[in-house]
C-alpha cells in the first residue's frame, strides 16, 4: 500500500471561480451580497421593499435562485428590479459559483452599485459554496425557532448580518428576539442585527441606510 498526498480542497474549482467573480466585482467597486435563509423567512419580500425604496438611488442587479419556478425573479421585476436574472437549479439545494459565472455576463457590472444574490432557501448547503460575495446576509423570521443560529452554526458563523424579519408577528409565537440574538452571538460575536417587518415597514429604514452606506464604502475603496 502506498500513500499519495493530494491536499486539495474538494471545492477548489468553485473557490477559484468565486475568487474571479469577487475580483471582477471589486475591481468596479460593486458590493455583492448573498442572501440566505430557510424557505419562507422573507428574502424576496425584503428585496421587494429594498428595490421599491432605494432602487432609484442605487443601480441594483439581482440574481434569484430557486429550485423550481421563476416566481421570485418575477416578483422582483414587478417590484421595480431593472436587472433581474433567475437561476432555476432544477433540484439542487444551493447556488454555486459556476451558476453565478454563467449569468454574470448578462449584467452590466460597469454601471452597477450592488449585486444581490438570493440563494435557495436552505441554511445548510449554501454555507459550503462561496459565490464571490462580500458578505452573507442571513434572515430569520419570528415564525421560526429562536434556536436557529445554534442549529445551523456553519451558516451563521459565515454570515456578517442577521435580519430578524416578521417582527409584526412578535407575541403570536414563543419567538424571543433577545434569545435569538444571544444564540447568534454565541456562534458569531460580530454579527450585525436588523429587526424588520416587510408588512408594516418597521425597521426597514435602518436596513436601507446601512445598505446605502455599505455600498458607498465599497465604492470609495476604488
Amino acid at each position: 500500500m502506498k500513500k499519495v498526498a493530494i491536499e486539495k480542497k474538494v471545492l477548489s474549482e468553485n473557490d477559484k471561480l468565486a475568487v474571479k467573480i469577487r475580483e471582477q466585482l471589486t475591481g468596479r467597486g460593486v458590493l455583492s451580497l448573498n442572501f440566505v435563509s430557510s424557505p419562507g423567512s422573507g428574502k424576496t419580500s425584503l428585496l421587494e421593499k429594498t428595490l421599491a425604496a432605494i432602487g432609484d438611488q442605487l443601480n441594483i442587479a439581482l440574481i434569484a435562485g430557486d429550485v423550481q419556478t421563476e416566481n421570485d425573479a418575477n416578483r422582483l421585476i414587478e417590484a421595480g428590479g431593472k436587472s433581474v436574472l433567475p437561476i432555476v437549479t432544477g433540484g439542487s439545494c444551493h447556488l454555486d459559483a459556476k451558476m453565478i459565472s454563467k449569468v454574470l455576463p448578462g449584467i452590466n457590472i460597469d454601471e452597477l452599485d450592488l449585486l444581490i444574490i438570493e440563494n435557495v432557501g436552505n441554511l445548510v448547503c449554501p454555507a459550503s459554496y462561496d459565490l464571490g460575495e462580500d458578505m452573507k446576509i442571513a434572515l430569520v423570521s419570528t415564525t421560526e425557532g429562536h434556536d436557529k443560529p445554534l442549529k445551523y452554526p456553519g451558516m451563521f458563523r459565515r454570515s456578517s448580518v442577521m435580519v430578524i424579519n416578521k417582527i409584526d408577528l412578535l407575541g403570536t409565537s414563543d419567538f424571543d428576539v433577545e434569545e435569538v440574538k444571544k444564540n447568534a452571538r454565541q456562534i458569531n460575536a460580530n454579527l450585525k442585527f436588523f429587526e424588520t417587518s416587510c408588512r408594516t415597514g418597521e425597521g426597514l429604514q435602518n436596513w436601507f441606510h446601512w445598505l446605502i452606506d455599505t455600498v458607498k464604502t465599497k465604492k470609495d475603496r476604488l
Partner: protein
Amino acid sequence: MHELSIAQSIFETVLTEKRKKNLSTIEKIGLKIGSLSSILPDSLEFSFNAIKIDTELADTVLEMEIIPIQGNCKDCKQKFQVHDYAFFCPHCQSGQIEIQQGMEMEIAYLEIED
C-alpha cells in the same frame, strides 16, 4: 443534501489525479472534514458509493477524518478548541476569534495498491 454534489466533486478530482499521475487502483481516499463544514459523513459516503458503481473507482472507499474546530483568540492570543459551537475564548471570554481549523473539506491523500 449537497453531499451528492460534494461526492461528485471528490469523484472527479480523484479521477483526474489518477489519470494525470497514472496511478494504479485507488483503495482509499483520505478526506479531512471540518466539524463546521456542514457535511454529513454518512450521506457523503452513501452518495460516493452510489456514484462509483461501474467506474474506475468502484472498489475505492472513503476514509474521513473529522477535524475539530480550533480557534485563535484575537484578544489574548491563546489557541483553543471550540466545544458545543460556543465561539468564544475560554480564557478571556472574547468573541473575537479566528477559526484556524474546522471549516475544511479536503482530499488529503490517496492510498494506492502496490
